[in-house]
């Protein structure tokens, strides 16, 4: 028998390479499938059919798109900084793809006789900082791409994207901090496992219910962070043509595109890990790894669908509304939520009262806000009617 000869432990380096290649391959495939899903969902919402020519149900469409991107003509604008113009797509795509390294997809994987360890490329003790650092790095590629194209639309799109991403990154970090407070760890796997009912001292409730404010803030911030609708000012077609990638074509454009979808997938994985218990299967603590993986993928897929759904349902914000929402609403809310959660954890109260306290602390804030800024009602979508009455 083969099993008797082969060792149960593979060499460490082989495990690293296998995990990196398999998980990275899955990420790229998932990004391709998401592009197809985007077109299919938009078609469904708009009562069209969508791509249905390439392969059964158009399933091979992403592959066809990829081949087309490779054979397309490369265009570099005359005044462009050629080196930066080539580097920018890679600098944008790489951080989004690198984030996948710390995401815990499932527990210990055992295939046949081989124990491959936990299903994630690695488990860092400071995963949260790693993710925060990499989401920050994505801005460099966008601003380099916009600046080096020597085009007005590109530069404006890049400036908008960078200002928006830095504004919402604060809220994103503060929302994560509330979860870190509850889990008492910066390790993503520890955070996921702290929500399982088998966790030591845990109460087996997902952070979604313990941290509703942080959950909502995180979801809004992740839309802004990935430059997606309703916050896609970096590339809103009526104003800026293509935004920072106006001048890009062929594989360089494809890298921006892939980077955006990889960022979406990573964000969905993060929200699953932080707020939905990661790979926790409800009421089944000792689920095998493939069930855990299926649970994780199902949760993340729901959020990916949310991204597509929102894109084809909601209208776009105005830029000043976006900045107002980020700095005047989300940042104070996130600070209040961190303070309340910190008090609950520090004084050793039950985490179950966090949502009650957080909402109670928000009510006076909301009243103060509404009193001091009557005009700010435009944040909630009254802008058009107000403008109409003013003109």
């Amino acid at each position, binding site marked *: 028998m083969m099993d008797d000869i082969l060792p149960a432990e593979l060499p460490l380096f082989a495990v*690293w390479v296998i995990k990196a290649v398999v998980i990275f391959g899955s990420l790229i495939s998932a990004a391709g499938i998401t592009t197809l899903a985007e077109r299919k969902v938009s078609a469904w919402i708009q009562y069209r059919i969508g791509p249905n020519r390439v392969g059964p149900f158009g399933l091979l469409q992403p592959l066809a798109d990829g081949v087309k991107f490779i054979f397309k003509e490369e265009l570099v604008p005359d005044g462009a900084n050629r080196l930066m113009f080539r580097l920018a797509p890679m600098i944008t795509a790489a951080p989004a793809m690198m984030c996948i390294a710390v995401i815990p997809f499932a527990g210990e994987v055992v295939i046949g006789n081989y124990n491959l360890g936990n299903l994630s490329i690695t488990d*860092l003790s400071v995963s949260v900082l790693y993710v925060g650092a990499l989401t920050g790095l994505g801005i460099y590629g966008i601003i380099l791409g916009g600046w080096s194209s020597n085009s007005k639309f590109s530069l404006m799109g890049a400036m908008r994207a960078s200002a928006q991403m830095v504004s919402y990154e604060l809220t994103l970090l*503060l929302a994560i901090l509330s979860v870190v407070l509850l889990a008492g760890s910066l390790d993503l796997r520890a955070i996921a496992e702290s929500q399982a009912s088998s966790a030591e001292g845990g109460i087996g409730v997902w952070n979604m219910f313990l941290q509703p404010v942080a959950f909502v803030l995180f979801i809004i911030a992740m839309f802004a962070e990935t430059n997606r609708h309703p916050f896609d000012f970096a590339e809103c077609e009526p104003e800026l043509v293509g935004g920072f990638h106006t001048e890009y074509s062929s594989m360089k454009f494809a890298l921006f595109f892939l980077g955006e979808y990889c960022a979406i997938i990573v964000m969905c994985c993060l929200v699953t890990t932080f707020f939905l218990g990661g790979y926790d299967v409800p009421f089944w603590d000792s689920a095998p790894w493939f069930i855990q993986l299926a649970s994780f993928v199902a949760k993340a897929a729901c959020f990916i669908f949310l991204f597509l759904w929102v894109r084809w349902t909601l209208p776009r914000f105005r830029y000043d509304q976006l900045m107002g929402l980020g700095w005047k609403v989300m940042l104070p809310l996130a600070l209040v939520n961190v303070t309340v959660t910190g008090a609950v954890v520090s004084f050793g109260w039950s985490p179950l009262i966090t949502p009650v306290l957080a909402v109670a602390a928000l009510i006076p804030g909301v009243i103060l806000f509404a009193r001091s800024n009557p005009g700010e009602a435009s944040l909630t979508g009254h802008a058009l009617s107000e403008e109409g009455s003013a003109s």
Partner: protein
Amino acid sequence: MLIDYAPVLVLLAVVAAFASGGVIVSELLGRTRPAIAKGSAYECGTSGIGNARLRLSIHFYLVAVLFIIFDVETLLLVPWAASAKSFAEAGVGGIVFAQVAAFLFVLGLGLVYEWRKGGMTWDR
């Protein structure tokens, strides 16, 4: 454990190979037929007017400066957030929280000041 970071480097190699490989392959395989119009920056079909290095709204820089202030302050909270639970278990949760609350209060004052000064209002 420093060895935990080694798989990150492996992934970095895979990602770098994918990204640079894609760009290089498409530059080799894609056909090139240069033309004057193709090289000009897109400006809705007309020839470009003026320099593309625009003067931008000062608000972008203000946002960047504010971001640095608040981001550094958020990062200062990270070590506390990770260890607040152990502080509570050691029985010093209250005193540590009082210190953090003082810090958060100053941070909140800064936010209010910035708000009052109009630093967060985009269209003025």
